């Protein structure tokens, strides 16, 4: 197992290295000078001097990359050109909001998706299966930013139940207010993932239902409810864990659009703000952060899967 994890980590190295070179090179590719990109338009003379030293522009390119890369590994992404705060601090502040939204969204996705999958797998080809498949197609096809707008129109403009712009309130400090603020963006994302969950789990249930042990369970007289609930669902949920994990990885950085709809102060919105103010150190930091989290969670999901399913041979 340890060997497997180490080997997987080594496979990641080239991907991480090439991506970091790309992110590092951004500064050099933007119009204008790299120093300008790092200190922003109204940097002081001192800041410009500091940036020149930081970039090491008089050094060979490889040295320049190495000093940036070493800093990045140690969590030093430089300073935001807007707020002059360390980039890492700004990112860290946003993590709880994004994690909370992602968690709520996945919960809603599971609540909506699992029943849909189970019902349509139990009656495959029936009208109820067909209409539930229609639901999945719709959930996946409707752009989340438009769904978000429709939800705002219904719950905020029309019914006046929920705020149209969501702030971040920690669930642990004020659960009710937190749910009130996070519900609409979480529902928007939740509907979307419920489509993915339902589609995947349905396929996985259908293939399990063909297995021999199902026939055995039925022939020994088990009620259909127990066959599904106790045997089939448990086995089908195993590969399903992977999908849930992958969506969790995507939500760390992938809620950009939904956060924009609800002006929710998460990591995605930070990236949009950084891009619109051309705050390149911040852009680099956020993208590198999302990249690393994305890649690591993907790895974690693989490892977890190998761990919970002993049938997987990871040698």
């Amino acid at each position, binding site marked *: 197992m340890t060997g497997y994890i180490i080997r997987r980590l080594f496979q990641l190295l*080239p*991907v*991480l290295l*090439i*991506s970091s070179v*790309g*992110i590092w090179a*951004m500064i050099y*590719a*933007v*119009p204008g000078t790299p120093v300008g990109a790092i200190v922003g338009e109204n940097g002081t003379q001192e800041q410009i001097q500091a940036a020149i030293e930081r970039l090491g522009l008089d050094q060979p390119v490889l040295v320049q990359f190495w000093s940036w890369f070493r800093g990045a590994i140690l969590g030093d992404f430089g300073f935001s050109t807007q707020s002059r705060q360390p980039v890492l601090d700004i990112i860290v502040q946003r993590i709880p909001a994004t994690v909370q939204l992602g968690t709520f969204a996945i919960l809603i996705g599971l609540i909506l998706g699992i029943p849909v999958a189970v019902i349509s797998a139990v009656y495959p080809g029936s009208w109820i299966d067909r209409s539930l498949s229609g639901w999945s*197609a*719709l959930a*996946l*096809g*409707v*752009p*989340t*930013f*438009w769904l978000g*707008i*429709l939800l*705002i*129109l219904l719950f*905020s*403009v029309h019914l006046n139940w929920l705020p*149209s712009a969501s702030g971040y309130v920690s669930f642990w400090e004020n659960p009710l207010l937190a749910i009130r603020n996070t519900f609409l963006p979480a529902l928007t994302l939740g509907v979307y993932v419920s489509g993915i969950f339902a589609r995947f789990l349905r396929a996985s249930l259908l293939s399990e239902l063909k297995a021999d042990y199902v026939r055995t369970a039925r022939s020994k007289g088990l009620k259909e409810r127990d066959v599904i609930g106790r045997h089939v669902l448990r086995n089908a949920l195993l590969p399903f864990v992977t999908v849930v994990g992958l*969506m969790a990885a*995507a*939500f760390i*950085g*992938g*809620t*950009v*659009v939904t956060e*924009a*709809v609800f002006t929710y102060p998460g990591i995605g919105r930070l*990236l*949009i703000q950084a*891009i*619109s103010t*051309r705050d*390149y150190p911040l*852009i680099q930091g956020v*993208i590198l952060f*999302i*990249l690393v989290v*994305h*890649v690591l969670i993907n790895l974690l999901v693989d490892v977890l899967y190998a761990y919970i399913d002993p049938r997987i041979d990871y040698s």
Partner: protein
Amino acid sequence: MNDGMRRTLGFARRVFRRKGALLSVLFLATVTFVAVFARWIVPYDPIGQDLISALEPPSARHWFGADELGRDIMSRVIYGARTSLLTAAGAVTIAALVGVPIGLVAGFFGGWRDAILMRIVDVLLSLPGILFAMALIAVLGRSQLAALVAVGITGIPSFARITRAQVLSLRKRDFVMAVEALGGSSTYNMFTTVLPNSWSPILVQVVILSSVAILLEAALAFLGVGIPPPTPSWGEMLRTGKSYLYEAPYYAVLPGIVLTLTILSLDTLGRTLALVLEDRHEVAEEEAEPDRSAA
């Protein structure tokens, strides 16, 4: 009627037998027609301002209402179709022109070429598509070309993977081995033997990726980093419309309906094509779900 035509007709009949696919094609044909002949169809100039009728609700004069500058929303939706379809066409072309050869070479030769090419594809996949596109636009600046290229690059991995999977399944087939044994060069073999037999999954991918490209373009515009105004774009209209949800709810709703129907139609068509082609065993087992996690 020759054999090829008969096969194509039979194929079309099998696709159109499914009601969803038929409706989708009809809708997409309408959108395409309207986009191509936009200039003669639109009732108003899509960027012509008329401040007196600003935020006018839908009426006989303005079927979809008027926006905050009094521009006719229906005319803008029609021109927006043009933006969407052009971006999708350009992006999918870029993705296919780069991705298909990558998959072809990686699958055909295997070995170190496969390892290097697929690592590059992995890099593209290490970020969700929309973030990759945003990073690229942050560097290139905001323009129609940047949006098109950014969306195109995010589509490369799908084409590379699908083509590679298909090539791998063809590689050891008798007719490919025969060309090799007869002394056909690898290039000749790849392009005249393997590629023509890989069209089916690539075609499915073209349709599915068009829907992803339209969604991504709209998402970028919605975030304010897509095609710059005043060029009409569905995503940009939703972005602005969102600010007038109280005064003019139709503003953000109507363009959204057209956008959603377009995406759903392309999706349905892609799935039906995949099903029909699968019946004919022309599509390799591996079917990649498009990445739209962010949008």
